[in-house]
């Protein structure tokens, strides 16, 4: 991304006028003086310091320290993408840009406000399509707001820090239970230094029928962002949570390592949509997992467009009969990018169903990898699972890999996996060009058609944003 303006793509002037270029729109960097930041590198002192700043109870500090011990004792993963560029000693683990989280937009410091204005936050809220907005700048949540009607029904949409202070029972019941600190090295790291994120509780039967939104931004060079999100959808409830992510372009790499835990109780449904558009010097190593109880539905809609390396495999553990898990994902890997994304579906109860649809596009030497697991435990009869992965290669330097794992220990099941890799078809291209489209436009149209089944699942203005980002990625893809 942030490619130099290409003289050959004059036809995109109109488009550029609409959205600007990445460097202009998202790649800017505020020269603000941070209120507080910890020293670089990770030590027990820093973890204690973060906990002290947040005025946390002892049990949370203890969890952080457990996470730290496991992080230090665990080697780097030897699979997936190339992680050798991460230097844990160079990272600033905690940066605070604003003194407190604001609930009125006017109270947010001007420079941060300017940043989010340029990102379209809270434009999204003003558009009245979204039920609530949270915005995070480096480590801390700077703005949180929830429409009054949901508040009245008992919906909570808070920063996790507020939740620790005001709803400790709920947090203690679920924090680290779905993704224990020992799950993997980066979950351990997040447990040790987490800051910001979202905490959502939806009471039984409440349907939040417009999306709750969060926007994450890294502003400080070489900073890590380690947000922690916990969503509890009580019985029969519904919530759609949407997150967007950006970062300015620095010469040094940044690290984003979030943990997202979701509990979907009996009959509830949660949809979690992500448009990940980190600048392409961010390592995006995220652990996301939901547990779904009887007749509950968990849906991950996951679009990975930015970052240098993404390793992310949203999971659904189906614990009781009738649970359903779903992942719809799009990955776009351009020059210098590796999208290693996929999904885990764990069928731990009979009559559970899951579906994965993954679409990836690679160009300019970008590499996209689908990595997935479908696991069926013994005794889980009547399981149905289906995986479809399609990869589109736009040029001869691109690379696509597919690694689906199917582990099945029960016979009364139906599991299917299909994948295909192809280039943009010459016949298709010829057909469109014979109708007067130039090659760029024709390829763009084919790419849009390719991802359409997933884009249409996004809220409207996100779908528009998504298409814009894809066009940006596609720019100058010919010649």
């Amino acid at each position, binding site marked *: 991304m942030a490619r130099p303006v290409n003289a050959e793509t004059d036809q995109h002037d109109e488009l550029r006028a609409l959205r600007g270029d990445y460097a202009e729109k998202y790649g800017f960097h505020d020269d603000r003086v941070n209120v507080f930041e910890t020293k670089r590198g990770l030590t027990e002192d820093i973890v204690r310091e973060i906990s002290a700043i947040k005025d946390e109870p002892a049990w949370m500090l203890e969890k952080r320290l457990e996470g730290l011990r496991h992080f230090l004792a665990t080697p780097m993963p030897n699979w997936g993408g190339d992680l050798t560029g991460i230097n844990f000693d160079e990272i600033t683990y905690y940066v605070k840009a604003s003194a407190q989280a604001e609930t009125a937009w006017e109270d947010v410091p001007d420079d941060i406000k300017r940043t989010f204005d340029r990102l379209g936050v809270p434009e999204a809220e003003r558009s009245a399509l979204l039920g609530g907005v949270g915005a995070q700048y480096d480590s801390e949540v700077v703005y949180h707001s929830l429409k009054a009607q949901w508040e009245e029904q008992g919906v909570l949409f808070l920063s996790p820090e507020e939740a620790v202070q005001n709803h400790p029972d709920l947090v203690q019941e679920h924090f680290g239970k779905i993704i224990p600190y020992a799950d993997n090295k980066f979950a351990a790291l997040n447990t040790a230094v987490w800051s910001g994120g979202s905490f959502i509780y939806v009471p039984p039967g409440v349907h939040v029928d417009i999306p709750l939104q969060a926007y994450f931004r890294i502003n400080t060079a070489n900073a890590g962002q380690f947000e922690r999100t916990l969503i509890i959808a009580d019985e029969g409830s519904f919530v759609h949570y949407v997150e967007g992510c950006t970062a300015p372009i620095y010469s040094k790499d940044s690290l984003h390592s979030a943990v997202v835990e979701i509990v979907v109780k009996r009959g509830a449904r949660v949809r979690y949509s992500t448009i990940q558009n980190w600048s392409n010097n961010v390592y995006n190593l995220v652990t996301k997992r939901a547990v779904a109880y009887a007749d509950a539905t968990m849906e991950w809609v996951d679009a990975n467009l930015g970052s240098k390396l993404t390793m992310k495999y949203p999971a659904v553990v189906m614990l009781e009969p009738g649970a359903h898990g779903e992942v719809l994902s799009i990955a776009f890997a351009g020059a210098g990018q590796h999208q290693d994304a996929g999904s885990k579906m764990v069928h731990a109860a009979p009559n559970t169903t899951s579906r994965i649809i993954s679409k990836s596009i690679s160009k300019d030497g970008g590499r996209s990898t689908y990595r997935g697991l479908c696991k069926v435990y013994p005794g889980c009869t009547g399981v149905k699972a289906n995986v479809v992965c399609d990869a589109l290669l736009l040029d001869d330097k691109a690379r696509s*890999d597919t690694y689906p794992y199917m582990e099945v220990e029960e016979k009364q*099941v139906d599991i299917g996996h*299909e994948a295909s890799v192809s280039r943009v078809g010459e016949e298709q291209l010829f057909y469109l060009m014979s109708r007067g489209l130039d090659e760029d436009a024709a390829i763009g149209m084919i790419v849009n058609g390719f991802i359409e089944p997933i884009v249409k699942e996004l809220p409207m203005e996100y779908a528009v944003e998504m298409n814009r980002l894809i066009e940006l990625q596609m720019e100058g893809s010919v010649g």
Partner: protein
Amino acid sequence: MSSLHGFTRDSVVALSAALAEPDWLLAKRLEAFTAFEQTPYPDTRSDEDWRRCDLRRIDFDALADIATPNGATASAVTAADDAVGTATFVDGTLVGSRLNAELAAQGVVLTSLHQALPSHGELIRTHFMTHCVQPGEGKFTLLHAAFFNQGLFCYVPRGVQVDGALLAQVELGGGSLLHHSLIIVDDGARLSLVEEYRSAADVTGLSVPITEIIAGRDAQVVYAGVQEWGPKVYEVGVKRVLAGPGAQVSLCTGNLGGKLSKEFIGAALAGSGSSVDLLGISFPAAGQHLDQTTVQDHRVANCHSNLRFLGAVGDKGRSVFRGVISVHPEAQQTDAYQKNENLLLGDKARADSMPVLEILADDVKCSHGASLSHLDNEIVFYLMSRGLPRGEAQRMMVAGFFEPVIEQVPVESVRARLQHAVAQRIDNLAASHGGLL
């Protein structure tokens, strides 16, 4: 049976001497042995190729009795009369062979590697573990290169068409057998060959076989390897074809026996315009672990490969399939397909399927599919509505599940044996479930 004990340097030297090998072959063995000693056994936790295969179950030291020639004769192996040539190996020694005189006159060779050394030494030296399978690929290829027994050598000269099929039978009586098959089909030649591996039910043993098939320009090869080891045999093997320009090869494997079997089955598409079909069936039953790793290695442009592996898993059986389509950056216009279908029949059956695509070229058509399912009750109903009892309907469906691959095996008697072996497994499974699957 006389034998050498232990995977040691002394055993290498003694084995080579017993087989009266030329110096270059002993040197090749010793080089492999040195590397073997320096190479650890695969780490079954971190090495993806081995992650689902528990090698700790194999006591390599106890099984390291390497057979040497001892004048044994063919035992219960019945010579198929529908083959135009046969070669029978017992414990690593060629005990009998015959070949249609007309084929022999055209220069076709079907014998042991060692008997062919005087006449075809250069050919063997050029192709034996040099460019199809190489000793240094891993611990077990090194083990094989150091301790291989008297294996099969089959050669079809340029342009010669072998009508009918050749059959090689390999029997294991115990200890370690490192059977090597070197099959060379020269430019424009045609060959069908079946290899069968068997042992008696009470035999404990280790088999580390390698089959190399070198298909020359425009050669046509149909190969089938059927493994029916007894229930106490462990196996780690490699079967690979190296396909030259325009070659058309079908490589079919039946993986049925053994306690633990790990097979690496591969096609190297090294010549433009080559086409390889990889077909396989497996049917692990109680306590068996059958593990197959396949590679469709597209090295050059304009090649086609098609894989279809069918597996049924019975009670407490474990099946692992990992298949990779690998397309090198130069291999444009690749057309590759891969399908792994699993039928889960037994209680506590476990099947893992990992169909992998690694694509580094852009102008390709690659797709893969995998499925794990049970017998479709709608079809059971359909067959029952035509009068078939439930058990019979199920048996018919399982037999039908394997048929598309079995029918590709070129020798009628081997097809019949495969069908029989499958039927026997279905019957055993049904018997332990009161007649039903």
